């Protein structure tokens, strides 16, 4: 029975080779050139999946990207891909695929009983249960029953690439129109990129190999075009490449499937699996073709029902009989193409059911001449057959096409080829913001007005369905694009390719909802969106419930929202809504088209930017030392900072407590290299700093340091840090680690845009210096031993800096403190960082020098009530809120953000203000972010929130838990009791001053 539905000859397949593959655990054979779908059909397999909601048996419906039903799980973990369209999967030897979403098996699916319960699952079901009774009652079973494929469980082992391309002309689509456009422009010497999603060029010509172009059979013309394009040095043809997105200014995304069509064991190792092309094109020609529209009739979803164009494609391109006994349903002339192809292939053709009152058109006439029975003015009123179509019922319609007469005559068939007209593939055009118009004659939406310059839409995508006309249009667009890109003609150019008028499918009868013997929704379903199981009755329900906008109807019913994005369903949904509301189709309008056209692998978006290459990691010169000490690291921006240094047997809490204690008791050392450092230089540097800081810097003496606060113009704290005056015209500004880049941007912005007359130059020197802070009672002693600096408080007072040698290396030393202890920040050129650090560690051994990480640093500063920007502040906190009025200059007439501090809102007494918090228990450390309320839990909700905890630690030096918090009107609440309601208990606490240790600040001075 191998390939018993394969025709003895014909098709673009290599019959000399056989490929083995498996589907649903069974083995089959196919040929190179097959898709998984064509190979399955060659083996007589139509049933390939179960539907999303009702678990109805579903078959192969199309032969391309529009496929709603034939979604399979391809391959095995870790190389498995869900929701792959069998119609686009190229067959390779050893391919394995499984049906999705059926349990326990494809043929017997227990969830199919959901179909019986479908009247309890109307559209908008889950929206309704949000309101009543309770979505949670239904969530479990529905989540179990719904869904499509499954994601791989293991990390993706494949490699993906990204590449950028620039071209004079990007042509999307390698069918006749695309080839004509590419040839016209390519011959002029333009750099052309032609993108085709299929494995081979030709488009629909592959399914009609005997149409003629320039007197040649189409297949030969395509081959000649391919060869010529290949010979043009500036032309590149990408097959297996889908242009999935069209962004502004002719920027397009293309996914190239580089090795997906190889058996996994034979994939060339030097190639990525897929490649993402980011294309910027001077000109774009969209030749994306058209997709056939199925008529919507009752029970139109059984395996064996497929698009007429797909039936033709399987016969002509792949030499596969899609059925044994066929019926055709059409509302236009093009459906007769399938009828003729079926008859020629020897398929038993029962009849053509034509919704039109009279079967007109060249193909209809040809079919009549060949003796094919035609029933015009008839409808298919329903179908039967569980796992495969067995019969269809046919009845005459009234003149309006709204009713049928009689119960319907059963006609035995296992294939029903359907055509309801054609929709231009306008997805990319619409993504680029082009607008559509409804073409009354063609009964389709076609491009009307482009929003992009330098763009053309040609061929089927433009509603130009006649081959000869499409070729002329495309050729002209190709020439125009070349011209616009600067490639003038020579005057002796070739004419557009010539062909006959094939594809003329007029006249067409617009019936969006084919009548049945019972009202819509009874006795069966008229499926509109097969992938999301949306039936016409769901659309009508949405209309009954008052939805009018097509965007709302779409969301309420989820029509067009599945992975196929409604390629075969959207226009039908619009048509049915229009019919029902008695409005013309264009008044209902279209829904928005968004990228991607077809799904794109996450791996392709990521390319090589994964793992260590995802984001740059910045490390300090002492990083290796921290690692050797077993430090735990935390990410601060892109920096890796030592978080704490656990000794054997220590957890984080113990290690941090030890580091904090050791620093206050004797000596700690911190790697502070990551702090942002910006040199501010120039004759106007001091004046500039006066404008960007809240406090005065022009009065700062050379050799002295000052802490500064920066505000945004809204008065909110933006960054802080210590700035030192190195010389009259030279300052060294430090910023927070995470804020360094933003601060540099902020300063640059003002210098360039508002104060360009100021002579100030900014240089980031963060990475040029290694910074280590020694802090604690023994800091001075240690520094004295390893440097030539004079450290007495006269020469080197607090908030000053000196240059000298530390461990033999030229250093800048700043006597500033973020711990409240006497501290020295030693800066040496980065390349000496590790050597100086190691010297300090060796020399400090006698003082039990203890390296401390960022966590201990946080505890030490919190003990002193020093804020951290971004922790105590969140963009809504002013210096006044922080109790830092002392740093806001009263003398300066202006600085950034100053005026905002005088807005009435800033003066309100109930603004959240910084306070200290101590828990009543003393041992209880509150979680950061905990909300604070005034009542102890007995009050009925809603309970007003009066504040939240911003920092919270165990303080070994205070012997109790300490916290900082922002509390409404907090500065006037000292001593007041508040409560922190936590998940399992409520903690009572007291508001205190935000300084817990050494309130007088005496330890700074040793």
């Amino acid at each position, binding site marked *: 029975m191998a390939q018993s539905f394969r025709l003895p000859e014909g098709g673009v397949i290599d019959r000399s080779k056989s490929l083995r593959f498996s589907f649903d655990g069974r083995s089959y054979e196919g040929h190179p050139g097959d898709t998984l779908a064509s190979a399955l059909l060659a083996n007589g397999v139509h049933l390939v999946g179960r539907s999303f909601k009702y678990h109805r048996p579903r078959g192969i419906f199309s032969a391309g990207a529009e496929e709603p039903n034939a979604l399979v799980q391809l391959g095995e973990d870790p190389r498995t891909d869900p929701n792959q369209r069998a119609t686009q999967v190229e067959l390779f030897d050893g391919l394995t695929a499984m049906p999705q979403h059926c349990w326990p098996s494809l043929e017997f699916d227990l969830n199919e009983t959901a179909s019986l319960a479908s009247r309890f699952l109307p559209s908008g079901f889950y929206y309704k249960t949000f309101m009543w009774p309770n979505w949670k009652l239904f969530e479990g079973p529905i989540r179990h029953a719904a869904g499509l494929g499954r994601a791989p469980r293991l990390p993706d082992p494949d490699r993906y690439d990204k590449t950028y391309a620039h071209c004079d002309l990007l042509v999307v689509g390698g069918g006749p129109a695309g080839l004509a456009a590419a040839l016209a422009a390519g011959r002029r010497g333009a750099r052309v990129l032609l993108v085709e999603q299929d494995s081979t060029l030709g488009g629909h010509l592959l399914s009609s190999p005997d149409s003629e172009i320039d007197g040649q059979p189409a297949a030969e013309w395509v081959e000649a075009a391919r060869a010529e394009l290949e010979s043009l040095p500036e032309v590149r043809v990408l097959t297996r490449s889908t242009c999935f997105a069209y962004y502004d*200014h002719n920027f397009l995304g293309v996914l190239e499937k580089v090795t997906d069509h190889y058996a996994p064991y034979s994939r060339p190792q030097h190639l990525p699996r897929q490649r993402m092309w980011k294309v*910027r094109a001077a000109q774009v020609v969209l030749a994306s073709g058209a997709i056939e529209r199925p008529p919507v009739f009752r029970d139109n979803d059984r395996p064996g029902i497929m698009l007429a164009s797909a039936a033709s494609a399987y016969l002509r391109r792949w030499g596969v009989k899609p059925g044994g006994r066929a019926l055709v349903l059409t509302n236009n002339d093009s459906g007769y193409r399938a009828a003729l192809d079926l008859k020629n292939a020897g398929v038993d053709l029962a009849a053509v059911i034509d919704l039109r009152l009279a079967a007109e058109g060249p193909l209809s006439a040809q079919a009549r001449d060949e003796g094919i029975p035609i029933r015009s003015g008839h409808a298919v009123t329903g179908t039967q057959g569980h796992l495969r179509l067995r019969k269809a019922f046919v009845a005459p319609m009234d003149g309006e096409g709204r009713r049928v007469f009689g119960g319907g005559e059963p006609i035995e068939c296992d294939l029903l080829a359907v055509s309801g007209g054609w929709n231009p593939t306008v997805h990319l055009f619409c993504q680029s913001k082009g607008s559509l118009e409804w073409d009354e004659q063609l009964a389709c939406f076609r491009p009307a007005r482009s929003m992009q310059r330098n763009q053309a839409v040609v061929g089927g995508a433009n509603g130009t369905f006649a081959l000869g006309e499409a070729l002329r249009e495309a050729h002209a667009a190709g020439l125009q694009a070349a011209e616009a890109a600067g490639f003038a003609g020579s005057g002796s150019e070739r004419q557009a390719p010539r062909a006959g008028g094939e594809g003329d499918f007029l006249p067409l009868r617009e019936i969006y909802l084919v009548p049945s013997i019972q009202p819509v929704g009874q006795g069966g379903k008229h499926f509109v969106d097969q992938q999301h199981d949306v039936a016409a009755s769901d659309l009508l329900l949405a209309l009954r419930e008052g939805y009018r906008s097509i965007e709302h109807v779409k969301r309420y019913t989820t029509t067009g929202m599945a992975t196929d994005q409604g390629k075969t369903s959207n226009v039908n949904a619009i048509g049915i809504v229009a019919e029902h509301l008695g409005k013309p189709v264009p008044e209902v309008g279209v829904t928005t088209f968004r990228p991607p056209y077809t799904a794109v692998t996450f791996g392709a978006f990521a390319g090589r930017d994964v793992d260590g290459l995802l984001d740059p990691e910045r490390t300090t010169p002492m990083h290796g030392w921290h690692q050797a000490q077993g430090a735990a690291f935390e990410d601060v921006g892109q920096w890796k900072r030592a978080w704490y240094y656990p000794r054997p047997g220590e957890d984080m809490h113990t290690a941090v407590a030890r580091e904090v204690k050791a620093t206050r008791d004797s000596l700690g050392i911190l790697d502070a290299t990551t702090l942002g450092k910006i040199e501010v230089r120039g004759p106007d540097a001091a004046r500039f700093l006066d404008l960007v800081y809240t406090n005065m810097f022009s009065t700062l003496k050379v050799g002295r340091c000052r802490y500064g606060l920066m505000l945004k113009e809204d008065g909110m704290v933006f960054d802080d840090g210590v700035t030192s005056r190195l010389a009259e015209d030279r300052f060294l500004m430090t910023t927070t680690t995470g804020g360094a880049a933003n601060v540099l941007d902020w300063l640059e*912005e003002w210098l360039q845009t508002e104060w360009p007359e100021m002579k100030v130059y900014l240089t980031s020197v963060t990475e040029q210096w290694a910074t280590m802070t020694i802090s604690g009672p023994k800091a001075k002693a240690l520094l004295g031993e390893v440097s030539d600096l004079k450290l007495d408080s006269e020469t080197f007072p607090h908030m000053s800096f000196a240059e000298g040698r530390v461990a033999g290396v030229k250093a800048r030393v700043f006597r500033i403190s973020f711990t409240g202890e006497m501290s020295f920040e030693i800066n040496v050129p980065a390349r000496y960082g590790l050597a100086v650090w190691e010297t300090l560690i060796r020399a400090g051994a006698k003082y039990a020098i203890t390296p401390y990480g960022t966590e201990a640093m946080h505890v030490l500063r919190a003990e002193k009530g020093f804020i951290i920007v971004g922790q105590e502040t969140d963009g809504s906190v002013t210096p006044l809120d922080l109790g830092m009025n002392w740093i806001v200059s009263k003398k300066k007439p*202006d600085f950034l953000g100053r*005026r905002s501090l005088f*807005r009435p809102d800033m003066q309100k007494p109930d603004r959240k203000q910084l306070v200290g918090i101590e828990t009543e228990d003393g041992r209880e450390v509150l979680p950061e972010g905990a909300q604070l309320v005034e009542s102890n839990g007995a009050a009925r909700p809603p309970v007003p929130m009066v504040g939240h905890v911003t920092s919270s630690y165990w303080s070994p030096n205070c012997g109790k838990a300490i916290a900082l918090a922002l509390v409404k009107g907090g500065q006037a609440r000292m001593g007041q009791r508040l409560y922190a309601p936590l998940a399992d208990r409520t903690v009572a606490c007291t508001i205190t001053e935000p300084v817990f240790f050494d309130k007088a600040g005496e330890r700074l001075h040793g």
Partner: protein
Amino acid sequence: MLLIDCPHCGPRSETEFSYGGEAHIARPLDPAALSDAEWADYVFLRDNPKGLIRERWMHAHGCRRWFNVARDTVTYEILTVYPMGAEPPDLPERRYP
């Protein structure tokens, strides 16, 4: 994705730039002299036109210079690019329904 013609580096992709909002909002010379409403207007309020907008961009991953762009917010077409401090070029307003 916009293609922005940096006056210093030439046409580059939008990802190289950072956005700076509406252009030609001069910082008041004497903020203290402004009423709360006038100050709020400067700090918070910006036009959101359908059509022509003049806005600031910075070539963050290039020359790091700020400059002005005149753009149509409907078509996203960039009409012209001009340096900081230059008078805004006279462009016809673009009206959309």
